[in-house]
């Protein structure tokens, strides 16, 4: 079968100790037997490794940070599109999703397709809205509340028991054992990711995750559950293994069918010693461990691109259980002239 030639732009090429999903998504696309992809990297920082990984990324362009506003971003995309003729764009950072969702129509008019959750789906699964989400969809969630100052937490402290989890709106989470630690982590996260900060009840148990892809009509195109077997001090998986877990799968099908989720997602769950599942977060994109799902038999990046291109995708019905990943670090040697190109011209 002849492969479909597509130009796919994506971000999240920071393949560092807390990696973005970009490079694993590219690996999935490179494995595809149906898509012949030209990969365009959208880069925020000159030191993201992705642009220098020439066997995976064909061309990279610096793009403005989402916090700079929609217009500068769209202007840059217009320029890149003029040169590259982008077919599909896959944003891989939570922090840029809002900008992309807001621009979905404009991108579409330009001829660039995306496959993203709707604004409503994106908003209602925010960490700060999780209790309402749990109630609405009948899912166990830990008690949590958004705060904009440490004083806010002091006022509602009787509703929590220490330890509590202090979370940023996009990234970062720390376990705080007393008021001093709450204040410390509040300031640390707020300085980096802004407000609100979410205080969440700490649920003791094993952290398990599901990667999934919804077609936007209530169907789950693919889903693979995993347990982190090695966790870094940043809480990221450095190793993981696919599980056979019908309850996690049922929960995923239920959430996707009720919310009609569109796009990739990661459910972060805690399994308690009583075998109950608590949902602690929904990440609105494919996670950095997506290549484990590809290796287990579900090429979700390929399926996502096909959905974006309105190509029919049959739901995956199986995956390999007990498939493991072990992350590793690798020193990429970069010539100064390459770094120079990306830093001065914004292209490589």
């Amino acid at each position, binding site marked *: 079968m002849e492969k479909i030639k597509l130009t796919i732009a994506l971000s999240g090429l920071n393949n560092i100790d807390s990696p973005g999903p970009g490079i694993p998504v590219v690996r999935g696309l490179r494995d595809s037997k149906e898509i012949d992809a030209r990969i365009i990297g959208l880069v925020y920082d000159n030191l993201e490794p992705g642009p220098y990984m020439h066997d995976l990324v064909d061309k990279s362009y610096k793009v403005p940070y989402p916090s700079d506003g929609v217009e500068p971003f769209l202007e840059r995309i217009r320029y890149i599109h003029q040169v590259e003729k982008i077919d599909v764009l896959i944003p891989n950072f939570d922090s840029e999703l809002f900008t992309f969702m807001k621009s979905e129509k404009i991108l579409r008019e330009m001829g660039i397709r995306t496959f993203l959750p709707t604004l409503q789906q994106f908003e209602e699964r925010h960490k700060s809205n999780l209790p309402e989400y749990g109630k609405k969809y009948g899912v166990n969630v830990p008690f949590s509340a958004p705060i904009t100052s440490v004083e806010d937490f002091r006022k509602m402290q009787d509703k929590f028991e220490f330890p509590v989890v202090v979370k940023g709106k996009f990234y970062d989470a720390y376990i705080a054992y007393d008021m001093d630690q709450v204040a410390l982590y509040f300031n640390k996260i707020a300085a980096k990711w802004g407000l609100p900060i979410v205080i969440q009840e700490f649920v003791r148990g*094993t952290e398990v995750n599901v990667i999934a892809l919804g077609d936007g009509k209530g169907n789950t195109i693919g889903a693979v559950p*995993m*347990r982190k*077997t090695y966790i870094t001090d940043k809480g990221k998986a450095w190793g*993981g*293994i*696919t*599980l*056979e*877990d019908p309850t996690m799968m049922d929960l995923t099908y239920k959430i996707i069918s009720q919310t009609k989720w569109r796009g990739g997602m990661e459910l972060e769950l805690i399994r308690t010693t009583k075998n109950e599942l608590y949902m602690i977060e929904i990440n609105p994109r494919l996670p950095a461990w997506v290549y484990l799902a590809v290796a287990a038999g579900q090429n979700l990046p390929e399926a996502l691109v096909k959905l974006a291109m309105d190509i029919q995708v049959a739901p995956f019905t199986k995956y390999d*259980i*007990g498939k493991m990943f072990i992350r590793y670090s690798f020193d990429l040697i970069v010539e100064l002239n390459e770094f120079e190109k990306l830093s001065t011209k914004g292209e490589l």
Partner: protein
Amino acid sequence: MVKIKKNIAISDSGFVFDPGSGDSYSLNPSGLEIVQMIKLGKDFSAILEAVTEKYEVDSDSFERYYYDFIATLAQLHLTEPDGKD
């Protein structure tokens, strides 16, 4: 009768994999032999007979080791919760 959970994978080398939790363990040859007998549906008395016939171990000692071993398997959630000898 003790029953090993159906989904637990046990290889000939003694590698045990629990697909529900993702945990894995290694059995030594005697442990593997006993687990294989349990999987074949043998109860304690049948296993006792087979082991004491094959190895130099007295019944009392084996009984102690056996129930210790079974308790470990149960603690690791490798056996059905209702199965008992």
